């Protein structure tokens, strides 16, 4: 075993243990902020696994999208809505936990079985490494054009929806009373535009 292969094995073992321990802690930890930060760590380790598989573009995209966007968004949501309230104890929590644990272990058993009975073609096709970026681009704009466009339209819809839901709009005239609204306020009041104010 030469140095390169042993380094890869060590990296793989470290990364996969971080992924497993991290994702279990994401689910089990009581503190939701820790869970969110650990999720970031898990995403980073998955990116590291992609790097080990010689897929550097996918790894960088993983970091950019999952760590830089999704995880930051989750953290933002947690920190902006950080109400310290006592949650009511749910009835029959133990039974629920046992049920969900059973389902999770069943899924794990299923995955392990799939892993064992599938005839994996090892070693798989050779990784194209640095050419992957160009190849992904070619595929996205030729044979995967339709899914790519559909995904973009879906994202656009989600974005417009988010803007409509979150927008704080101040009309020049109050819909209900017809009075002129004072617009000098810098911090606009939080009135969702979807709520019909004429009924008040």
């Amino acid at each position, binding site marked *: 075993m030469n*140095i390169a292969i042993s380094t*890869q094995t060590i990296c793989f073992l470290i990364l996969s243990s971080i992924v497993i321990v991290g994702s279990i802690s994401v689910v089990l930890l009581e503190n939701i*902020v820790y869970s969110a*930060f650990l999720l*970031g760590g898990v995403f*980073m380790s998955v990116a590291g696994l992609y*790097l*080990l598989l*010689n897929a*550097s*573009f996918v790894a*960088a*995209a993983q*970091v*950019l999208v999952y*760590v*830089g*966007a999704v*995880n*930051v968004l989750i*953290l*933002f949501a947690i*920190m*902006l809505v950080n109400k310290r309230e006592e949650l009511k104890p749910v009835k029959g929590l133990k039974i629920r936990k046992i049920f969900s644990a059973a389902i999770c272990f069943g899924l794990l058993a299923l995955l392990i079985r799939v892993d064992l009975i599938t005839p994996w073609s090892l070693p798989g096709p050779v990784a194209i*490494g*640095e*050419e992957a*970026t160009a190849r992904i681009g070619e595929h996205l704009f030729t044979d995967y054009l339709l899914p790519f466009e559909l995904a973009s339209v879906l994202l656009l819809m989600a974005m417009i929806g988010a803007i409509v839901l979150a927008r704080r709009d101040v009309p020049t005239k109050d819909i209900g009373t017809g009075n002129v609204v004072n617009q000098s306020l*810098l911090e606009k009041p939080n009135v969702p535009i979807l709520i019909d104010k004429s009924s008040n």
Partner: protein
Amino acid sequence: MLTSNSLNQTFAIANSGLDLEFSFTKAMEGVGLSPEIAHILWLPLPMALVLVAAVVGVLVTVWLERKISAAAQQRIGPEYAGALGILQPMADGLKLLVKEDIIPARADTWLFTLGPVLVLVPVILSWLIVPFGQKLLISNVGIGIFLWISLSSIQPIGLLMSGYASNNKYSLLGGLRAAAQSISYEIPLALSVLAIVMMSNSLSTVDIVNQQNTIGLLSWNIWRQPVGFIIFWICALAECERLPFDLPEAEEELVAGYQTEYAGMKFALFYLGSYINLVLSALLVSILYLGGWGFPIPIEWIASWVGQDPNAPSIELLTGSLGIIMTILKAYLLVFLAILLRWTTPRVRIDQLLDLGWKFLLPISLVNLLVTAGLKLIFPSAFGG
């Protein structure tokens, strides 16, 4: 894994420039070591060198900042620590090093410690792709500039982490502001980089520089991407949290933002991180828009005018050193500009900042991308078809 020297060699470039690894391996083989051992001995050297270069770059920048700020306010600035106060940054660093490391009583110890590390490490990792010459970089990875964009998106997590862990409302607000600023300015930044990448048909920083150095000064990207250059520079300043965009640590509003509770070496890590980021951004602007290591007049032309072979070892050495000097010179010109901007522009408000990012820079950079694509189709020779 990350190294891709094979890719480097496939580019048909007449002048390959200095190859220090090759010379080092040869020298080690001369001593009687196998190539593999020589490679392992070589590996840490560029990393250590770049780390040292980054830290020295920070010391110089801090000194420049103090001196230029003083000049802008008609003061003298640091004077007694060394000639012209040049040792002042060292004294600052030493002071921070020996200060007591205080963790607030109700802070979250783990997150509080991890936060500054998460801010600093991605910035240092990004130096991986900064080229000082044809082969004078740690690793010519194929994803090049994309690596920097994705690494810089990790930073907000460190800022949020330290803001949250400090258990202080100013810190939390500062952290949230920093993260919001960082993610909103990343989009125009990435779009303006995309326009450059479209012209050079490659993400690799070496290719981007090579594509600019065909006829010297006139072929630099700044002439083909003037709008992109301005967008990139504004966004880079915002990413570095420099004035006019230093809202996360606006001292009149937020004490010192997410750094409020930090002292000693942990504070120094933030300080170091922000200055390394400034130097890195200046270096990247010079690589993307100002021709990187290229001399205003191509060295090959000068060599042929004087009647020298550009591939002769002495000329190569001269070209290599001139390349390093040019890169650093351009970067420090931009640092100088950033320091001048600090003392000439007022700080923007948070709503102005977000308006500028989302309502002005984002549409403009999209239009810039579209125009670049159109020009590339119309004038493929000038815009890298």
